[in-house]
């Protein structure tokens, strides 16, 4: 799915994915985690990657089955080094209004990888109702 760098398109894409997640019987907590992580990934892609440029697009690829959900979000920006993002839970950053998106993705998903120089993020969530599975399979 390819969307414009606008929040209305974000909601439409997110809902299509969440409908699939619900159809496959994921738990409420897993659905919450996927919704949160995808929202953060799309927010980063639109705001930071594409800098809200209406001519730039965000590509969302996802695969949902009974065992796990895998989502890849790709923007048209120059990428970034995720290691250089400050820890938002550190005392000195706790009062900063921004900078929690990547930490939330990592906290709520089973696997998070930044690829392509940082302009792609791959998110994996195991369906805890289906039993354990190695996310790297």
């Amino acid at each position, binding site marked *: 799915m390819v969307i414009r760098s606008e929040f209305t398109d974000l909601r439409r894409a997110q809902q299509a994915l969440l409908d699939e997640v619900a159809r496959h019987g994921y738990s409420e907590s897993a659905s919450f985690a996927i919704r949160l992580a995808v929202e953060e990934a799309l927010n980063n892609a639109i705001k930071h990657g594409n800098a809200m440029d209406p001519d730039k697009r965000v590509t969302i690829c996802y695969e949902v089955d009974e065992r796990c959900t895998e989502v890849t979000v790709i923007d048209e920006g120059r990428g970034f080094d995720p290691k250089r993002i400050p820890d938002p839970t550190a005392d000195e950053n*706790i009062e900063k209004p921004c900078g929690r998106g990547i930490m939330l993705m990592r906290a709520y998903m089973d696997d998070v990888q930044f690829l392509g120089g940082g302009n792609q993020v791959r998110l994996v969530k195991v369906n805890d109702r289906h039993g354990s599975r190695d996310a790297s399979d």
Partner: protein
Amino acid sequence: MKPDNEESLGLEVERHGRAAVVHVRGSVGLGEAAGLRKQLCDLCDAQCHPVVLDLEQMYFIASAGLGAMVEAHLKLRHHEGQLRLLKPQPSIRRLFETTRLTKLFPMYEDAGAALTA
């Protein structure tokens, strides 16, 4: 019970003298964070203290919504005000714990305690 439309954001303000309770219903994602920010900003400008966010019927919040709350915390502090959280759902409580924002926002299960603490 969850509201019929969990996606939309509902904000209802109840004043108790200088204090304010904001009943939040639905979701605070990217599309809704600006609405929460404006409401909190208005209460900050009115120098309310404390501002209690009733989260019993809020089922989702993303970093944009958390950011709006941190901004309100910083503004309220100028006049020794405080933002307090009332009855967050377990998933929302976990999110505040994960981000360590519990350090900024005290949580209460009782409205009276939230208003008078």
